[in-house]
């Protein structure tokens, strides 16, 4: 497996930040009450993680080991601020929707975790990919979480999409008089659903491991036969 494929697979499944590393839980749990919120935060995270990983990987030979953490935080915060300004100026409509998420990302420890664990030791392009893919892995979990919580809690999907695409309409999945299930929208719902997602991922992994073991067990037997 090539290094880029390995990075991608690692980020999206093996070391998924939302389901395995369990890093960056605060924005994950706070913003995953609808698909649009979740996707907005997720995409902003992809962008910031890719960029900060790339910048740190380029500058890593100038950063003394002893002060790497403050320098990393400085770089991440400065880049986020630049993105915040630039989006506010030139992508104002998108900024109105995603703007509140951008400062939140600085506090997301997954960004610092990838900079420290990957970008500080690897080449620039690989780091860029690692950051973006880790962000994407988080986005996948966020959107799944958002979809389930929104569906159970409000009986809709894509509510608020008209803030991004004025022509688009949210999907009313349940009947219009669906009373809603408040727990799913409130923070406890995020814990419940995330717990189920983690359990689901572990179940798939365990099943795959069992099958692999069975295969290994069967193969020598077949060879001797």
């Amino acid at each position, binding site marked *: 497996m090539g290094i880029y494929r390995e990075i991608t697979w690692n980020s999206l499944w093996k070391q998924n930040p939302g389901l395995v590393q369990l890093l960056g839980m605060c924005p994950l749990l706070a913003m995953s009450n609808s698909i649009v919120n979740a996707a907005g935060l997720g995409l902003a995270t992809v962008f910031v993680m890719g960029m900060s990983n790339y910048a740190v990987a380029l500058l890593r030979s100038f950063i003394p080991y002893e*002060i790497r953490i403050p*320098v990393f935080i400085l770089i991440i915060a400065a880049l986020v601020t*630049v993105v915040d300004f630039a989006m506010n*100026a030139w992508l104002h409509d998108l900024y109105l929707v995603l703007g509140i998420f951008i400062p939140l990302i600085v506090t997301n420890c997954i960004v610092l975790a990838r900079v420290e664990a990957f970008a500080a030791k690897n080449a620039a392009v690989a780091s860029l990919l690692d950051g973006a893919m880790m962000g994407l892995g988080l986005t996948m979990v966020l959107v799944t979480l958002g979809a389930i919580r929104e569906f159970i809690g*409000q009986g809709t999907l894509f509510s608020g999409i008209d803030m991004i695409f004025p022509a688009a309409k949210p999907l009313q999945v349940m009947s*219009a008089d669906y009373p809603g299930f408040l727990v799913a*929208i409130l923070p406890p719902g995020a814990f419940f659903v995330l717990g189920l997602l983690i359990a689901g991922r572990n179940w798939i992994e365990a099943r795959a491991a069992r099958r692999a073991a069975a295969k290994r067990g069967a193969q020598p037997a077949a060879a001797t036969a």
Partner: protein
Amino acid sequence: MSDENLGAPAPRPPSVIRISSSTAVVLLLFTLAFTALMAATYQFTKDKIEANALEAKMELIGTVLPPSLYDNDLLKDSIELPPTPALGTDAPSHVYRARKDGEPAALVLEAVAPDGYSGRIELLIAVKADGRIAAVRVTSHHETPGLGDYIDPKKDKNKAKPWITQFDNVGFDEVKPEEFRVRKDGGKFDAHAGATISARAVTNAVRRALKFAVDNRERLFDEHHEQHEEHEGKEH
């Protein structure tokens, strides 16, 4: 770098002071470089961001007051009020004065309902010169999604007649101040069952703001653009 007093012959690792000062310099350089980057971006985007903010402000005002009702530049014809208990504000707020052909047409006030279910609910209220409300909009809130957030028409499931439009064209001549409450409190305004707190907070804030606007109408319209002192106390 090696300590001469000890006279150690072998080359010694660099002293703590040496390491500290060199890393400090590196950190300082990084800080300077990235601060410069941020400052440059700020300078470069400042005008555009300000223009966007003004445009957004006008758009927001447009949601409570149709542009056909006035012909002056609202952003220029505004005064700043000090924190006013009647408006629920604890920081200076703006009042925009709409005029048509030089005659008072409407006041656009910023008000706050401090007692929402999850903290402050910020409102924009336009009161026409005849003492009736043109419209009310929630500009910022933290009410529970799917429960109390129907106070924001964008989140209200009733798209044809969002809850907040109940206040449109209402004045104290039609709804007496003591009836300007949600039904649960003996008033005239509906609230969704099980989510009265958000509606009650907004309704009470609108009543207080409307009273403030009606009581201080002349003063608010006449006050000169620059001066903004002694606003409190006189009302009620």
